[in-house]
């Protein structure tokens, strides 16, 4: 305990400095073991096991029985560290594992995720974070419930929160299961439960405080794991140590190679696997620009309404430090997001460019089939090579990949030592675990604080509240793992849905709560109900084969939900009386950074 209180905050830089040094030393040690002939599998297991053990240790050291510490980490997290924790909270299995693969195959249309998932922070900083921090709430429904008043508004916010976050968390538990299964050589169904165990070790004993300090540790692991292979590849391809400003030539080269090989669809498609048919650079197809912009808007508005992100800004000491930590979050997130397209480009070049030794397109099929990485990944059905035109040469449209494996397979594709693959597995695990922790905590806290304490049993004692919160954490985690083990959806798709649910139901009630004094309870309830119902109904419609309106497919249903939400919130508000004097004063107080919080601590 002494390590974490006071003492810890004064030495926080040194503690994480030592941790980072220790992790780098661990990587070097693994590299040495690999040279000494230790098996690749053992190195993978050591990477995953060692990092999870560290997170669990941090989780145990941060255990607490205080409400303020459990819900908002005692509101004393410094801005820079909260920025790192938010970055880990934010960058999920989808960002780490799936995004670069999406860009590899989807080109322009998938870059909307990159723009959306960074630009959203401008909305968080401009419209939400400082004002919600001033409010002094523990959860997002706490804000809705107090600003608009009444249990119905609070309950609706809880429902939207649970729908969005639960969709999201199953995808993350799925990702931890995938990584654990591959690294530890256990079946996926077991890997899911193993992943959940790791996740709960980080959050159960210490709530937000434990999650904060493990997320900082997880950020450090995941950013190192993402950058190292890219820097390595870039260096060996002659683009220097920092590829970001110099891979323009690689982009041009890919455009030339695309023209040379031709972007043809496969002669015979394979379920779950893709061949490259989309150009890397140019927008193609009907509505390409419209689709980009609508996806980006859904992701940005979703960023600004996802409770597990907003609640991170409740943990800073002041309003000013909340703003500062949004800026740091974006900077830390930016480091990964502007690397992802570079990774997609350089990996593609490794495979396509005949002047590089790793290229496989245009090589004889037998030679390609003999490669270790091709064998490893085809064994688990995530890759296939099929000579469909029978000429004995691998064509571009004869290489089938599952988009999700591009990042995980990149070290092997580029011929890097196995230690890098182990590092990437640990990074993917860190990304998925940290997001899952944030989401589980957001759900459990909303249910324990808003539903149980505020609505069902307002007289509950502190100890009871915190025990209820923990039981809910375990139960929801188990439910998530159960659904994840059924593998209903892909990672990136499920995540896009979560963003659309969140922005459909919560974006306008949250924004207008601060920015429109006239907004009242009836309007907010109408906005949440109409947005959530319209969005969900539209999702159901397009997912079951309905013709999308204006190209708005199932990844973009938030546009429909948000429109319904805005219109009904404004109309209903104007048809009903303005909120009373007290609420108007509350809004004024929210807009000023100093002075007492609206909600006292221990509320």
């Amino acid at each position: 305990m002494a390590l974490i209180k006071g003492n810890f905050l004064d030495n926080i830089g040194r503690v994480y400095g030592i941790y980072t040094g220790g992790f780098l030393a661990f990587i070097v040690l693994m590299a040495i073991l690999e040279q000494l002939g230790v098996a690749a599998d053992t190195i993978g297991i050591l990477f995953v096991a060692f990092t999870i053990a560290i997170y669990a240790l941090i989780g145990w050291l941060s255990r607490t029985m205080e409400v303020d510490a459990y819900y908002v980490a005692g509101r004393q997290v410094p801005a820079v560290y909260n920025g790192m924790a938010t970055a880990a909270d934010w960058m999920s299995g989808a960002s780490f594992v799936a995004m670069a693969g999406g860009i590899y195959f989807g080109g322009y249309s998938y870059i909307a995720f990159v723009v959306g998932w960074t630009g959203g922070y401008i909305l968080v900083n401009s419209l939400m974070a400082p004002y919600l921090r001033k409010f002094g709430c523990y959860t997002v429904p706490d804000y809705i419930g107090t600003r608009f008043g009444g249990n119905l508004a609070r309950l609706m916010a809880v429902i939207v929160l649970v729908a969005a976050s639960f969709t999201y968390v199953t995808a993350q538990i799925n990702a931890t299961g995938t990584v654990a299964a591959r690294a530890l050589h256990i079946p996926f169904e077991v890997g899911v439960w193993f992943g959940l165990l790791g996740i709960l070790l980080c959050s159960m004993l210490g709530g937000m405080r434990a999650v904060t300090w493990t997320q900082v540790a997880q950020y450090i692991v995941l950013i190192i794991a993402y950058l190292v292979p890219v820097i390595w590849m870039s260096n060996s391809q002659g683009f220097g140590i920092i590829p970001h400003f110099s891979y323009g030539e690689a982009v041009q080269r890919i455009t030339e190679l695309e023209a040379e090989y031709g972007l043809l669809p496969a002669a015979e498609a394979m379920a779950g696997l893709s061949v490259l048919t989309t150009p890397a650079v140019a927008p193609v197809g009907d509505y390409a620009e419209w689709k980009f912009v609508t996806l980006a808007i859904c992701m940005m508005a979703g960023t600004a309404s996802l409770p597990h992100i907003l609640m991170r800004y409740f943990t800073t000491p002041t309003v000013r430090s909340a703003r500062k930590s949004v800026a740091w979050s974006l900077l830390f997130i930016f480091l990964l997001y502007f690397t992802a397209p570079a990774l997609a480009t350089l990996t593609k070049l490794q495979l396509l460019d005949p002047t590089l030794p790793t290229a496989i397109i245009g090589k004889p099929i037998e030679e390609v089939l003999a490669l270790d990485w091709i064998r490893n990944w085809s064994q688990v059905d995530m890759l296939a090579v099929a000579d469909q035109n029978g000429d004995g040469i691998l064509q571009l449209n004869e290489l089938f990949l599952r988009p999700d494996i591009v990042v995980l397979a990149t070290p092997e594709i580029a011929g890097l030592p196995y230690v890098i693959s182990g590092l990437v597995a640990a990074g993917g695990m860190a990304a998925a675990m940290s997001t899952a922790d944030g989401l589980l905590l957001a759900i459990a806290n909303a249910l324990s604080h808003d539903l149980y304490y505020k609505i069902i049993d307002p007289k509950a004692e502190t100890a009871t509240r915190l025990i209820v919160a923990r039981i809910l954490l375990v139960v929801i985690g188990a439910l998530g793992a159960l659904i994840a083990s059924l593998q209903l959806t892909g990672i990136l798709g499920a995540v896009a849905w979560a963003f659309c649910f969140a922005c459909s139901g919560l974006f306008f009630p949250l924004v207008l709560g601060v920015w429109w004094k006239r907004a009242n309870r009836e309007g907010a309830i109408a906005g949440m109900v109409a947005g959530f119902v319209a969005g969900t109904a539209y999702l159901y419609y397009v997912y079951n084969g309905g013709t999308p309106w204006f190209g708005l497919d199932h990844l973009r249903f938030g546009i429909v939900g948000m429109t319904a939400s805005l219109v009904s919130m404004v109309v209903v508000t104007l048809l009903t009386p303005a909120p009373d004097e007290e609420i108007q004063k509350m809004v004024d107080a929210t807009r000023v950074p100093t002075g007492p919080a609206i909600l006292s601590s221990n509320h």
Partner: protein
Amino acid sequence: MSGNEVKLNPEQMDRYWGKTRNLTFVILFLWFIFAILIPWFAGPLNSVSFMGFPLGFYMTVQGSLIAFVVLIFVQNWRQDRIDDEFGLQEEE
């Protein structure tokens, strides 16, 4: 949270909020350019070359992202100045 209570009178409150709102609108306008307009015109912009990249591609994978980071730090710097002007500093 700080203990120093600064009470703004209604006129000051209006001026403070007016300045904050204007800053926010300027930032959101710039955000709109980088997040919506530039990606929309990525196709035509690609005919321009920038540091070896097609410009439209460069802006969507890096340029707009850099702009977001700069915008958010500038916004916080300006907002801090506004807060200071009205004596709304907090003790950390």
